[in-house]
Structures are given as structure tokens and as C-alpha cells.
């Protein structure tokens, strides 16, 4: 797996910037790509597209129910609509419209939710979307993608433009370390082993994959070889890659910047409970809301960093050994 050199100082960039570039590239390649936004064009990095393709850009205003249903209508005419807002508003506010007019209606609308997770920071709990993965994962036909950095977000956006299903793309606000390279593979529905190890599987998505890689380094110094599996597509889950790893390691920690209920951790727990039960802990928001603060202090406070992944790994390994 071709990754960035973790021992060098990593470049950082907001994941949403990769979406902006991906959308522009997808639009240049396919005239059917259109986009709509609910008054957050710059924040969701849709401005690159809107500037270059004003005739294919629709400003919806602060109306997220309309945002996704207009998307369903555009898709009915054969367009490939990307519709963006903050994740807390879309898919937070418009879930039923997504269910009926996009999923049950099977229209390939690309829902882009930016500013997900507590790392939104100072805006506080109202704007820190933590339930979006759970909300989207329970919908039949929906694909759920949480890329780990801006380069992967760019690839994911291009893949979404070619995908015939409804998709949800989860983006974060803050600059995130760039861990992948242009050569790192990305396919919808695939999980990737970012670090090999035989003792424990660290299964992560989105912004937490970087933290898991850092945790794996410190675990190595503790004498533990952790396997880091990056799961950018939370639905459909790459069951084979995950099950192959856990059959080898026999212990799991999941990590995500979302509620532990219904998200990646929930998905992995469901998979393992039915196929290969084993000691497991879930890193994520523990059924509570966030608050204002700087991103890093919030991540530490809520236990969403490498230190807490490492601690959880030791706890799970104690259970595995006992």
C-alpha cells in the first residue's frame, strides 16, 4: 500500500477541499454532473464548480428539504446531482425526503455533508454532526463514504460521479493530515490495509484513520503489531477484508468521529457478532453531544485520538489473553 511517509512531517488539508477538486474534475469529464448547495457554497468547497459551471449550479438557499428533493428531480432527468450542505442539516434535517425521493425512488443523488464530527470545534454541539453515518447507513440503496483525507475525498468524488446508486459523502472541516498519495487505490466498497500486523485489528474511517496509524506506531513500541484497516466505504462494508484480518488477529478496536451507535463501530459489531465474535471496543462519541472548543482539545476530551486508541487496544488485548 503506497502511503505518505508517516515519519516525515505530513502535509495537512481539509478533506472538503479534495471534494471540491474532485467535483470540478468530474464536471469537466461529464456534462451531466450538476450541483446544488444550501447557502454554504464556499464552506463545502463547491465554489470551484460554481465558478466554472454557473449554468450547472443551483443555489437553493437555506432549505435542505428542498436541496435533496430538487436533487431527486435533477437525477430523474439523467443528471448526476451533487448536493451539499453541513452534515447536520443534510442529511440531518431532511432524512425522510432522502428516504422517499432518493432511496426508495432509487435516484443517484450524491449527498455531501461537510463539517461532520466534533472537530468542527468552536461552533459547538449544534453544528457537530455525529449521527449522520447511522442515519444514512440504515437506508436501503444508500452508499456511505467517509474518506480519510483530501486526496482520497477527491478520488471518492470521482467514483461517486460514476456510481449509479444514491451516495452519502462525509466531509470534515479542519485540516486533516494527508496520509494517502495519488497512487493509493480507492474503490467504493473496498477496505484497505494501511498497516500490517497480527495482534489486533484497528478498524477506522474518516479523520480517525490518521490517529489509528499513529496509535499503531506507539503500539509497536509496546511490542504489539496492530493491523490498521481503513474503511472509507462504511456501506456496503468490505466484509472479506475485515473478516480476513480479524480471523488472524482475534481482537478489534474501531475508531470514528461519530456516535458509537449505528456508525462504523456498529457496522463492525454487527458483522463480527454474526460471523466471528471476539473481544472488541469502539472508539467514538459515547452517546453524548459535543461542545465548543479547539478541535484538538475536543478530540482529546472525548477520547478520539491516538492515545485513546492505544489504551483501548491494550484493554482489548487483556480480554483476548484472559
Amino acid at each position: 500500500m503506497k502511503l505518505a511517509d508517516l515519519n516525515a512531517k505530513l502535509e495537512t488539508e481539509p478533506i472538503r477541499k479534495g471534494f471540491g477538486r474532485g467535483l470540478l474534475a468530474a464536471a469537466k469529464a461529464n456534462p451531466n454532473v450538476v450541483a446544488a448547495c444550501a447557502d454554504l457554497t464556499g464552506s463545502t468547497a463547491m465554489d470551484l464548480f460554481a465558478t466554472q459551471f454557473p449554468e450547472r449550479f443551483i443555489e437553493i438557499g437555506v432549505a435542505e428539504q428542498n436541496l435533496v428533493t430538487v436533487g431527486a428531480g435533477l437525477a430523474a432527468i439523467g443528471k448526476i446531482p451533487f448536493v451539499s450542505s453541513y452534515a447536520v442539516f443534510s442529511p440531518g434535517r431532511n432524512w425522510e425526503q432522502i428516504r422517499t425521493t432518493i432511496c426508495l425512488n432509487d435516484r443517484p443523488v450524491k449527498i455531501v455533508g461537510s463539517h461532520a464530527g466534533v472537530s468542527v470545534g468552536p461552533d459547538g454541539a449544534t453544528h457537530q454532526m455525529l449521527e449522520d453515518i447511522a442515519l444514512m447507513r440504515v437506508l436501503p440503496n444508500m452508499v456511505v463514504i467517509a474518506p480519510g483525507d483530501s486526496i482520497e475525498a477527491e478520488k471518492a468524488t470521482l467514483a461517486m460521479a460514476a456510481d449509479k446508486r444514491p451516495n452519502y459523502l462525509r466531509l470534515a472541516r479542519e485540516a486533516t493530515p494527508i496520509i494517502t498519495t495519488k497512487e493509493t487505490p480507492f474503490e467504493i466498497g473496498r477496505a484497505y490495509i494501511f498497516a500490517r500486523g497480527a495482534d489486533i485489528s484497528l478498524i477506522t474511517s474518516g479523520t480517525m484513520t490518521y490517529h489509528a496509524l499513529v496509535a499503531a506506531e506507539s503500539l509497536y513500541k509496546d511490542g504489539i503489531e496492530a493491523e490498521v484497516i481503513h474503511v472509507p466505504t462504511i456501506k456496503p462494508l468490505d466484509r472479506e477484508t475485515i473478516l480476513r484480518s480479524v480471523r488472524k488477529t482475534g481482537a478489534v478496536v474501531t475508531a470514528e468521529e461519530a456516535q458509537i451507535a449505528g456508525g462504523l463501530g456498529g457496522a463492525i459489531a454487527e458483522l463480527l457478532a454474526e460471523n466471528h465474535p471476539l473481544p472488541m471496543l469502539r472508539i467514538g462519541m459515547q452517546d453524548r453531544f459535543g461542545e465548543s472548543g479547539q478541535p484538538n482539545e475536543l478530540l482529546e476530551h472525548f477520547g478520539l485520538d491516538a492515545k485513546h486508541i492505544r489504551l483501548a487496544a491494550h484493554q482489548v488485548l487483556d480480554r483476548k489473553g484472559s
Partner: protein
Amino acid sequence: MQKLPIERLEIIANDIRQDIIRMLETAGSGHSAGPLGLADIFTALYFDILKHDPKKPDWPERDILILSNGHCVPVRYATMAQAGYFDRKELLTLRQFGSRLQGHPERLRLPGMETTSGPLGSGLSQACGMALGLRIDKQMHRWVYVVMSDGEQDEGNVWEAAMLASKYKLNNIIAITDRNNIQIDGPTESVMPLEDLRAKWEAFGWHVLEIDGNDIEAVIDACAMGRAIVEKPVMIIAHTVPGKGVDFMEYDFHWHGSPPNHEQAIKALHELRTLGGKIRSEHQ
């Protein structure tokens, strides 16, 4: 498609009403008042206004008809069967397991059904998306018609769409409000007043026409006029009688969500066949 005289369309609408009664009686559940009130509008749409081909439901040149208030779908099923989309015998499978005629319409199950609907307030938004897509594709000869209820205009989503259509001057949309003044809990004006409905739509930037929605000729004329309005989207407020054609159902909100039982169905069919007693000798 050859245009039929109004007298012929009125007979078709009556046949559609009889099919609605049979369907609902057989199903044992479903909505009576709205579908009966909409029979004239749907007859006008499918037999005169819409450019469509029952043998090619996906014909790329067709006009698009969205039924936003999905609970009124029995009238659409019955009209589509009359128009030749499928055999009328299938109508009696309404709401049964395995049927293409779901209790609320599903696009993927029935060719010619343009959207899946039921949860209210999202039809006009989808029409906006379609109208925008058609404009981008320079397909302005295709029209997007939306039938919506009055009660569903309690939904905020409707007014989000109203603003967008006005902003983008989506003159390829013709919306028809079934203004029958009832919803589940009672008269619209006591559940959540909508008036002055015309002034509301005009204030949102729409061109508003008001007609008798049980007058087929008026529906056809209003849509023709609507297509000639180029500067704004068009809302036709069609005043209809809920339960139209069946005396004991007319104007009564209790029939919003109920089907007739066997005796009521016999009575209703008799009334429709005799046009409310105007024809004395009914052929049984």
C-alpha cells in the same frame, strides 16, 4: 393522440370513478374523497393535456406528471388503465401483496409512475429539479405537471420549492392544487388555515389561475393558458368537490381516508351509473 370531445371525456371520468369505488371496496382500505374529486383533472391530463404514450412509458419526449399527494393514487391507476398503460383487471389488485399498485405509488414498480410519493410536500421540489434539468438540456418543449393537495401545503417543503421555482422562473412547471378544503383531521381552514391561498402563491411569485376542477374543459383551458405564461411558474388552484359524484361522500372529510364497504360501494356505483338519478333506467 386524437383529441376526444368533452362529452366523451366526461363519460371516461365517470368510468374512472366507478373503477375507484371497485378498487377501494376490494382493497378494504385507502382514500375515497380525493381520488373521486380528482377524476376530472386526471381525465383531462391523460386524455388531452399530456404528451405521452401508454405503450412507451419511458418515451424521452413525454411530458412528466408528478402526483405529489400520493394517497390519491387510485385515481391515477384507474386513469392509466383507461388510457391503456395496463389492463383494467389489474386495478383490483390495489394494495395487495405482490401488486404493482402499491397503497402509495412506487416508481420502480409501475412503468409510467414518475415518482415515488406519499409523504407530503416533496412533489413540487422534484418538479423543480426536473424543470431545471430540462432547461439545462434545452428540452423546454417538455412540460412538468404536478398535482398536489391543499392539505399538503401545511408542509414547509412546499414553500421552499415555491421560492426556488420563482427564483429560477421555472415556466415549464404547471402545478395544480386540488383545493377540496378537507384533510384528515377536518376542514383545512380549521386544521391549518391556507387562505388567502391565491395571494400566498402570487406573493411567492407565481402566476395563479383559479378554476372549477370538476370541469374538464376548464382544466384543459387552464393548462393551455398556463403553457402560454412565460415569465413565471403557474399554479392552477382547482376547486374540487371531495367525493365528487357520490352524494353521501361529497364534502365530508370523514371520507378522506376511508374506503366504501360493500353496501356503500353498491350505492355509490348505482349513483355513478345513473349520474345521481338523472338517468332513470340503469342497465345492470
